[in-house]
């Protein structure tokens, strides 16, 4: 029984719950059993409140029995990247700094999911404070790629991607600042959606880079990503950057929107550094759309291609250096035992609490904002960011969506890039500009390398047109079976 549930989509599970074929308790037990069986090797989870999940499942079953089920997510377990607050649960950001921190409040997305009856199921590993592209920068050790345990799952939402890919939980939340949902989704062979900046509230998401961070959904299918997005999207008065937009029925839109579409292919996203197998798989996907009657246009994004990473690392680190100042060992978090004065509390607690990548970015961000360098670095980066956004706006005037690889490389070996931060940063080359422009982006499986590693196709949409973007993705998924392949664990 349990094994049959593992790789079913949330949409299928919802149907079975609704039909009374399974109970939420059975579903949670199946997930717990799977986690028990594989997570010792995958290490997707930082923690899991098993009793809490079972209690929530019981409550869901009781609601359903009373005819008060709250909708398709009622009784479905959802994993949380360990950067999103759930009241009474740990919120570690995979940092020693917050190793013992328990959140006294719920993020807005958490409140929304609880209201929908979803079951918060465990805390998922990540790069510390979402800084990284491999989940190796975790104070609790790296997560492994379920397709090849010697390789990284991508990052920073590596735990969220691996947990879905390994069948431990059908849906997870991630966060994406420069590709942190799409890149691990691609490397783990699942669907990862980063919504338009402002569509999903950031309240309760521990900030990395506030003007870029966005919570998004990770799932087996496009339909599942749409299902979860519908539950978490929408205006939030607690987040000043949250947009006052109507939330459409994304799942209905999937069925309704059929194309053909005008699709842009950014010329620069297929240049040097792109793994040939990935390039070939993505070109095949483009051919699929052409055969479906879509108009395929080559477009140019020269500024995004050339400067996005530089702009990103100036803006993101500047914001991070300020956002992470609150981790000081005073009100919560790690306080150094060696500290004898207040300065010691600061200097030593932060030295002991943060890992090397976090320290590196705090120092870089501090430099970028410091007296004498602000104009040359931070202000200039903000201006180039404007130009990059304008470039996307112009291109998307004539295109419904853009197609590109998600990552230039498939899952790399654990430890392979960790000594060279710049090389690691360059793996985000196709995803980062989407965050700079604030656009929605999705990665869907589009094949495998000869070595059996998943390949992701990135689709980039217009602001707040998640419905359109998901429909384009759905058209591909419906005609292919990549998403039905699973790693053997």
């Amino acid at each position: 029984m349990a094994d049959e549930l593992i790789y079913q989509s949330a949409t299928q599970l919802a149907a079975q719950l609704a039909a009374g074929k399974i109970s939420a308790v059975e579903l949670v037990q199946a997930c717990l059993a799977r986690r028990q069986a594989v997570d010792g090797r995958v290490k997707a989870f930082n923690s899991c409140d098993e009793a809490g999940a079972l209690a929530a499942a019981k409550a869901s079953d009781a609601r359903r029995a009373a005819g008060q089920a709250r909708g398709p997510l009622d009784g479905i377990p959802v994993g949380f990247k360990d950067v999103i607050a759930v009241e009474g649960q740990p919120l570690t950001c995979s940092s020693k700094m917050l190793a013992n921190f328990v959140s006294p409040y719920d993020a807005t997305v958490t409140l929304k999911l609880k209201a929908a009856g979803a079951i918060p199921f465990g805390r998922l590993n990540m790069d510390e404070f979402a800084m990284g592209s491999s989940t190796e920068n975790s104070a609790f050790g790296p997560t492994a790629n379920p397709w090849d345990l010697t390789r990284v799952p991508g990052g920073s939402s590596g735990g969220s991607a691996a947990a879905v890919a390994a069948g431990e939980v059908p849906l997870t939340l991630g966060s994406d600042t420069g590709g942190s949902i799409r890149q691990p989704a691609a490397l783990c062979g699942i669907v990862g959606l980063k919504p338009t900046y402002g569509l999903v509230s950031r309240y309760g998401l521990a900030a990395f880079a506030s003007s870029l961070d966005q919570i998004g959904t990770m799932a087996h299918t496009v339909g599942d990503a749409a299902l979860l997005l519908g539950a978490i999207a929408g205006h939030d008065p607690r987040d000043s950057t949250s947009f006052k937009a109507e939330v459409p029925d994304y799942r209905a839109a999937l069925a309704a929107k059929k194309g053909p579409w005008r699709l842009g292919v950014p010329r620069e996203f297929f240049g040097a550094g792109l793994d040939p197998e990935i390039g070939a798989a993505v070109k095949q996907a483009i051919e699929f759309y052409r055969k479906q009657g879509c108009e395929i246009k080559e477009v140019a994004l020269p500024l995004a291609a050339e400067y996005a990473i530089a702009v990103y690392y100036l803006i993101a680190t500047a914001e991070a250096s300020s956002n992470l100042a609150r981790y000081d060992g005073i009100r919560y978090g790690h306080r150094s035992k060696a500290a004898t004065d207040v300065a010691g509390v600061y200097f030593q607690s932060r030295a002991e609490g943060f890992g090397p990548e976090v320290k590196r970015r705090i120092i870089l961000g501090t430099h970028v904002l410091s007296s004498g360098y602000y104009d040359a670095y931070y202000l200039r980066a903000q201006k180039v960011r404007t130009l990059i956004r304008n470039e996307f706006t112009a291109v998307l005037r004539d295109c419904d969506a853009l197609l590109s690889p998600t990552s230039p490389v498939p899952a790399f070996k654990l430890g392979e890039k960790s000594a060279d931060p710049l090389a690691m940063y360059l793996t985000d080359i196709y995803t980062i500009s989407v965050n700079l422009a604030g656009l929605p982006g999705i990665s869907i499986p589009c094949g495998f390398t000869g070595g059996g590693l998943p390949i992701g196709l990135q689709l980039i949409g217009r602001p707040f047109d998640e419905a359109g973007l998901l429909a384009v993705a759905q058209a591909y998924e419906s005609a292919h079976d990549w998403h039905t392949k699973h790693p053997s664990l």
Partner: protein
Amino acid sequence: MNYEAVIGLEVHVQLKTASKMFTRVAAGYGQPENTLTDPVVLALPGALPVLNKEALDKIITAGLILDCAIAPVCKWDRKNYFYPDSPKNYQISQYDQPICVGGTVEIELPGPSRNVMGEHKKIPLTRIHLEEDVGKLNHGASDSLVDYNRAGTPLMEIVSEPAMHSADEAFAFLTALRTAMVQGGISDCDMEKGQLRCDANISIRPVGETKLGVKVELKNLNSISFVRDGIAHEIRRQVAVLGSGGTIVQETRDYDGQTGASQSLRSKEMAHDYRYFPDPDLMPVKVDEAWLAVIRPTLPERMFDRQRRYLEQFQLPYTLTSVLVPSLALGAFFEEAAKLSGKPQAAANWITNDLQRELAAAGVELAASKVRPAHIAGLVKLVESGVISSNIAKEVFVAMFATGEQADAIVERKGLKQSTDTGELEKWVTDAIAADPKAAAGFKGGNEKALNAIKGAVMKASKGKANPQLVDQIARKLLA
């Protein structure tokens, strides 16, 4: 050598709002420690700020009262520095685009005497911006305890130009500023509660020199008189240093109002580098004419404008106006009484003397006073029409204050009407002459003053009710 002092003030004023600047947990004073917090106040991971609209309305009100230009667009910046009372280790403030630019504070310097108006000046402001307050550190013997109740309270920073030249000017500036803020409903400005806090930048230079001298920042000036005393002390100190051939070092000094001495605060090991940058969590604010048009009608009349009006429109003496104008409520009370009575001066006298005295003695606020403007007007009318004497009126006022009864009712109930019954008056005068033949003889002998003894006896016998004019007439007739 003669020196001129140059003084600029930086004033922090807490805004009177129900909730905090960037979150809706209650703002307040005197609550149990750490009971006014939430994830935003404590800077918990994931918490985000959202502006308080009322704080914006209040700073715009302040800006309009002080003739500032209201910026069409202002934005929010992070000021990065570490301190245990600062939960985020950055303060959300306004750096290069504050909401209020320029403006002035009209001040009045002490006149030659209390009865004479002093010189007026307009002290220019640099800017006013909005930010958030920090928590409170309680220092113990071996450690410090932090209470975050105050953290996140809306705070307005008012920066003056270095345009004052004496401690008296600084004192007058703060007094006028506080009045404007209180009258605008912007803040209660209670310095004991930290609702108004002031730092002063002070330098001196030889008279005639235009370049500014080295400035010293004076901190912890926690009452308005300490500001005056501290600045005067610092000016004397700097003059003495330069006079003895020394040099002024740029530093921050702490003034102790109790001992009247200042000491240098441990100089910071490194210059500040606050790394200001636009807060990505907060959207800029656009202020359009429609918004200002909503606020303008709510602005109170400025204190000195009102004082000028009282002097001109009501012909009040300066001393009375200077009692009436510092309080909006008292001014409004007066204007109502003036209107109802038609006798502004008489009404002003009752209010500034008798009413103020009784309120102070009873420890009662004006708002709770049983004497309302109509009572004053009724009393003024009784005196003006000769129904009671001013002496009786004093007695009636005390009764009104105690009971809230109208003056005419008290006069009626106590039978205090002036007697104009000539038969009764003649009897009192006849008795008085009989009782004091010496005075009667004196008057007859040409001593005008001797009549006063007779009249006094009549007033006493009549318990003040005898009409003094009639008594005078009758006495002269009977002694003729």
